[in-house]
């Protein structure tokens, strides 16, 4: 399975993502934001970081990059596009995903491990995943997902909520919501579920000696679903 990771000025999780993808057997290549086109890929990843220093709004400047037109075309033709953290923010700014990531409710930068519940498995990312709750890592200042009531209803009706913040046992409530996100939302899909944006970093949970291995399950599962 071929993947491409797009690098923007200020991306800082691009190489972690490269290591993670290669570890599980993806043939990954790095693509610069100013390039016109993306090499043939089955998966495009917009990595975490602080593209353009989070100027104006997180992800807003990157969403106007030269390469983004190719990303949108790829997504609209059914290709898998994954945005992690800043990548999720960029995807909302391109309009591929609904809503926006606002500043965390308590104005703090959060860097910690969290549990997320997989809400939908009828998609190429989570199909056949054996676990329902994953331990992943978050590191963000703007992860407070917000959208209009109509958009929320449509997300719920189409099962587009991908993952939500929860406790180890899967409980979703205010206590297990780190940033104030509406309905504990940590990640969402587009309507066709080929585009996934999420705040948690699976690429930081791929080694039991460093953090944990639930991120490994995530990447292996994408590969298995592709075969």
């Amino acid at each position, binding site marked *: 399975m071929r993947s491409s990771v797009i690098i923007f000025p200020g991306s800082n999780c691009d190489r972690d993502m490269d290591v993670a993808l290669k570890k599980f057997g993806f043939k990954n290549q790095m693509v610069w934001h100013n390039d016109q086109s993306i090499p043939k890929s089955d998966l495009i990843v917009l990595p975490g970081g602080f593209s353009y220093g989070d100027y104006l709004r997180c992800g807003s400047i990157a969403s106007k990059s030269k390469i983004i037109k190719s990303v949108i075309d790829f997504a609209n033709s059914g290709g898998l596009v994954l945005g992690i953290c800043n990548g999720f923010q960029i995807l909302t700014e391109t309009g591929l995903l609904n809503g926006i990531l606002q500043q965390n409710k308590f104005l703090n930068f959060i860097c910690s491990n969290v549990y997320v519940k997989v809400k939908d498995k009828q998609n190429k990312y989570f199909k056949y995943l054996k676990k329902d709750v994953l331990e992943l890592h978050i590191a963000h200042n703007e992860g407070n997902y*917000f959208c209009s009531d109509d958009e929320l209803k449509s997300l719920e009706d189409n099962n587009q909520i991908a993952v939500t913040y929860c406790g180890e046992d899967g409980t979703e409530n205010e206590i297990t919501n780190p940033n104030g996100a509406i309905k504990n939302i940590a990640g969402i899909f587009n309507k066709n579920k080929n585009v996934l944006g999420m705040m948690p970093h699976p690429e930081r949970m791929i080694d039991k000696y460093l953090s944990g291995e639930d991120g490994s399950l995530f990447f292996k599962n994408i590969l298995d679903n592709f075969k």
Partner: protein
Amino acid sequence: MKIKVIVTLKNGVLDPQGKAIQQTLNGMNFGNVEDVRQGKYFEIEVKEKDEKKAKSLVDDMCKKLLANLVIEDYKIV
């Protein structure tokens, strides 16, 4: 021609920074401050002499980049 734009959060959208500013002002004995909403202000120099045209250009910029209409409103002043 210089066009000025103010971008603010829509009514009903939580503004934690505004809230923190309000609480700080209250703590500084500005007890009559009931609410603060924080926004952004832009001065855009447009190479255009016709004010109507310049404003219409900036309006387009607001829709496409300067404001995110999910949570923000803009006003050209």
